[in-house]
């Protein structure tokens, strides 16, 4: 008895539906494992990468020296810790002075990533992980320009002299501190005391850089957090690259969704195949019952078969999934961070289990049905088991889907949307299938003989035909949506980070220098994103009240009210900004109103945080002068556009031009980098911020995410094919039967072929149309609800999807039927 399930499974393997079940299950598991593992590994690897921006896994910033006990605790845990002291001071060489931001390193740095130290500015240098030797200093390029110094020169630092040992061309912290006015220099901690430079009252910050293996590191962080006070700030690796965060999160959502969709599609294929399997096994179960098998024994027999299938299918799926993810990791090793993090087994196990969950959720009701057949069926073929309540089947399937969705997306909102859409969609899709079928019949009446015969075939079993159109249509809807969403994501990223996205910022440009700067850039054919004036000012009041009284306690702590804001004025709405409420000023003369108030445009999300609305009046203190601005518009700002963006923009005329410095950003290819030397020579006070290295890293991350997205599509398409194949399989018998009947009645082969192909082609057209309509609707909903993208139509696909549907269904359908049609009628009938 025990071996019987295995024997039966081996024999049933020959039948199509077991292969479909198996194939679908394998795809589901493969997708879950491969995607789960790849996203997990790249996610963690990207975490590592962004740690490089930070120079460590975590940084702890504190206004007082870090407590020795914390250092001891961290080192006990085997963590790498480097302390640093940060302050501002002046470097001098002869008569030249430059305010610099000093980081005095107490040990090796960076802990994650490397410094790139060169001999000359704007050249490639050597990668190092170290601290400057005592008596030496590493400087940013503009320090050299400002001091007129070069490598090897000595500069005054407090009471001692330091030798310039290298120029920093790359390293941690370059992105987060781009608006740091003073250039950075790194020295050895020992020189701080020697230079006697820190006096009581000096503004000093202490930073602890923390790195190490996940477990001890997270333990340490968990231990640390409760001990920290409000003045201390802990920054984790993930926050190192805010500009990328949105893109990566969106990509991950897409990947998870896609893997989920391939699982759900596989589930549909499994359900269809299991239904057919169970119908074919009613006869056998009746014989078992007739021979005296108990119901429970029959259950056990079939559930064991299901489990055998599940275990083998999942095991193969896991193996293939792992192979695929390894192949991807090896193939794209150049794009991926090195060394790649090892596999975490959680997503692998989860993927394998999901196979069993899907199998149980989608196939169990059908399998459970088998043993319920009456033994009387051996005498009366028409006896079919009391159907399991279809509610139960749907509920189990929906519950399974919800469980998987929740597991994958971690978002109940997304699960709700998807389930709601799925439920409504199923009803609507079935209705649409019905409608398309009816319209098709009406139009087809006027068609050729072949079309009319094909229609005749479909009309014989309308309910079955509508089910087929629904199932095919569903597969096409999902496949189309996946393709569309993927294209949308990719093009969005490309437009977000085009090849010529600005990779250099210039700040501190004096008003008098603007024409000269424009000339230099024009000579090099460099286009800027606009040159904006910038004035720093503090918000002091709102609607006539001091700001502390005017806004909520929470809003008072908002960064924008606690520090000086960068303010600007422009005539027109800047690129990457969109007015979402109120109105932008028109181009008339800019005059304050009778109360001396100018128009002001504010970032929408800042307005939300501060709780202000159109018409509210802010008071600013700008260089000791009070300026009032009345909010007349809210803007939505694309912060990751790599161009100067401002929370608050005044209308022209409000701010004193003489107090402004200018800021701009532009794309500068590597071969034009020497132009920066020209700029620094002619305008030594200008600050250049090089983002090209970071941008390269950003591009790399996007590339690797793109690859993953492309790849995941394959899984969805494969799962879609499994559904199509399962439905074709399930409807094969009816098709063969009617063709054989025609043959028995003396129809010519050619006629039978024509009828069958026309029937298949019509199914293709109907389901293709359904796929297009449903796909467009689903994508619009997902764009708006889940991804915040403006929905658009895709007319190009309106032709292609039905054509592909016809081609696929005809070829695959014909392939399955061909061999049977060539056999003599009585043999065919015996096999059914």
């Amino acid at each position, binding site marked *: 008895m025990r071996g019987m399930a295995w024997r039966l499974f081996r*024999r049933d393997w020959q039948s199509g539906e077991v292969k479909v079940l198996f194939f679908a299950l394998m795809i589901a598991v493969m997708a879950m494992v491969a995607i789960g593992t790849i996203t997990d590994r790249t996610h963690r690897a990207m975490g590592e990468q962004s740690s490089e921006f930070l120079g460590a896994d975590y940084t702890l910033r504190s206004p007082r020296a870090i407590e020795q006990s914390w250092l001891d605790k961290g080192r006990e845990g085997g963590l790498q810790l480097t302390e640093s002291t940060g302050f501002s001071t002046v470097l001098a060489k002869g008569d030249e002075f430059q305010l610099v931001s000093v980081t005095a390193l107490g040990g090796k740095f960076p802990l994650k990533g490397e410094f790139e130290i060169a001999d000359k500015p704007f050249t490639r240098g050597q990668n190092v992980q170290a601290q400057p030797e005592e008596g030496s200093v590493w400087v940013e390029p503009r320090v050299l320009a400002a001091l007129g110094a070069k490598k090897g020169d000595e500069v005054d630092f407090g009471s001692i002299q330091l030798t310039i040992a290298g120029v920093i061309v790359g390293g941690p912290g370059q992105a987060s501190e781009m608006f740091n006015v003073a250039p950075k220099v790194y020295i050895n901690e020992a020189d701080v005391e020697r230079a006697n430079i820190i006096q009581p009252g000096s503004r000093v910050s202490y930073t602890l850089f923390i790195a190490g293996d996940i477990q001890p590191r997270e333990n340490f962080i968990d231990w640390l957090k409760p001990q920290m006070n409000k003045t201390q700030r802990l920054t984790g690796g993930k926050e190192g690259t805010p500009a990328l965060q949105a893109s990566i999160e969106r990509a991950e959502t897409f990947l998870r969704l896609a893997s989920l969709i391939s699982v759900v599609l596989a589930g549909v294929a499994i359900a269809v195949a299991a239904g057919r399997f169970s119908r074919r096994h009613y006869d056998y179960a*009746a014989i078992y*019952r007739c*021979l*005296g098998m108990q119901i429970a*024994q029959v259950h056990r027999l079939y559930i064991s078969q299901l489990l055998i299938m599940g275990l083998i299918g999942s095991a193969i799926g896991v193996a293939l999934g792992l192979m695929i993810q390894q192949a991807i990791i090896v193939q794209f090793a150049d794009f991926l961070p090195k060394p790649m993090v090892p596999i975490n087994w959680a997503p692998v196990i989860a993927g394998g289990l999901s196979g069993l969950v899907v199998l149980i959720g989608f196939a169990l009701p059908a399998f459970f049905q088998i043993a319920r057949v009456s*033994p009387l069926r*051996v*005498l*009366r073929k028409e006896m079919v088991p009391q159907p399991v309540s279809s509610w139960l089947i749907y509920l189990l399937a929906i519950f399974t889907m919800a469980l998987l969705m929740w597991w994958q997306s971690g978002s109940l909102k997304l699960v709700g949307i998807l389930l709601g859409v799925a439920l409504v969609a199923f009803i609507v899709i079935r209705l649409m299938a019905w409608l398309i079928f009816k319209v098709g019949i009406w139009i087809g009446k006027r068609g050729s003989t072949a079309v009319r015969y094909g229609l005749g075939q479909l009309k014989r079993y309308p309910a079955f035909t509508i089910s087929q159109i629904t199932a095919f249509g569903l597969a096409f809807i999902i496949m189309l949506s996946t393709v569309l969403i993927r294209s949308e994501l990719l093009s969005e990223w490309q437009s977000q980070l085009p090849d010529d996205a600005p990779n250099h910022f210039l700040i501190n440009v004096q008003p008098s220098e603007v024409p000269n700067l424009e000339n230099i850039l024009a000579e090099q054919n460099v286009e800027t994103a606009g040159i904006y004036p910038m004035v720093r000012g503090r918000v002091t009041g709102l609607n006539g009240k001091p700001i502390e009284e005017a806004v909520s306690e929470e809003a008072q702590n908002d960064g924008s009210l606690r520090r000086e804001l960068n303010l600007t004025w422009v005539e027109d709405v800047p690129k990457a900004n969109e007015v979402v409420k109120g109105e932008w000023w028109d181009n008339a003369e800019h005059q304050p109103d009778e109360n001396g108030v100018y128009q002001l445009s504010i970032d929408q999300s800042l307005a939300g945080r501060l709780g202000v609305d159109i018409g509210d009046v802010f008071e600013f203190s700008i260089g000791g002068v009070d300026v009032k601005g009345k909010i007349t518009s809210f803007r939505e700002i694309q912060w990751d556009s790599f161009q100067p963006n401002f929370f608050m923009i005044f209308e022209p005329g409000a701010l004193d031009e003489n107090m402004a410095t200018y800021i701009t950003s532009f794309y500068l290819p590597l071969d034009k980098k020497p132009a920066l030397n020209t700029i620094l020579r002619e305008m030594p006070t200008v600050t250049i911020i090089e983002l090209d290295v970071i941008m390269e890293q950003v591009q790399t991350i996007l590339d690797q995410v793109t690859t993953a997205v492309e790849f995941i599509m394959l899984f969805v398409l494969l799962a879609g094919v499994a559904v199509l194949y399962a439905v074709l399989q399930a409807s094969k018998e009816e098709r063969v039967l009617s063709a054989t009947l025609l043959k028995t009645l003396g129809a010519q082969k050619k006629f039978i072929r024509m009828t069958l192909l026309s029937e298949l082609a019509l199914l293709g057209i109907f389901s293709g149309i359904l796929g297009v309509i449903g796909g467009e609707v689903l994508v619009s909903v997902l764009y708006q609800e889940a991804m915040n993208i403006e929905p658009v139509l895709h007319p190009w696909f309106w032709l292609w999807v039905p054509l592909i549907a016809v081609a696929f269904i005809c070829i695959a359908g014909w392939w399955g039927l061909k061999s049977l049609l060539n056999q003599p009628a009585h043999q065919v009938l015996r096999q059914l």
Partner: protein
Amino acid sequence: MNMMLTTRNLTKTVKLPEQSLTILSEVSLTVNEHDSVAIVGASGSGKSTLLSLLAGLDTPSEGEVELAGRPIHKLSEDERAAVRAQYVGFVFQSFHLLPGLTALENVMLPIELKEEKNPQNKAKELLVKVGLAERLNHYPHQLSGGEQQRVAIARAFASDPKILFADEPTGNLDTGNGEKIIDLIFNLNQQLGTTLVLVTHDDRLAERCQRLVRLEAGKVVEDSVNPAQVIKTDTTQEDKVETA
């Protein structure tokens, strides 16, 4: 002689939307151990329904069925299945072999269900008896109709049934194969001392039985004894006792 099968006022009605239809009406029969009974009648006379009730595949609307002393009209599905496993063998018109199992595995199945030891040896023995020694490991689709029915017969006898039910066992076979199958059923029946209840249209088959029950519109209209067969069987029984 012991009674193997008894029915009292066996009635089967099915409810239709407008009325209820009586398929079998107050059938009372007694079948003794080692008897062979042919149930004959036109299509729709209720033969198959009677067979399904006698074998416990279905339950009566009214009346009682006792099989090997068990009141199967009172038993649950699973209890009836247990009775079938213990006492009953079947041969069907359309063979009903399990296509996923070889000839040998098909015959082993009922033995395994009774949890007897060495199912393989016994199954082989039976297949040799039905002349399929060379076909043990063939799958049903690799066998001819006649061969498939012989496997089915071997399977029917595999569980040492007290009673064998046969539903038109020759219905799907040509005359030549039909003859062979009839011989096989009766020979084995006699050798193994099984009680035989068969439903048939086939006069040749009915003639080989000791008793003939004719149904018309769900009622027994004839219940006669075939004297020639009774004598023949009795002698065989005695022979068997002597040789045993």
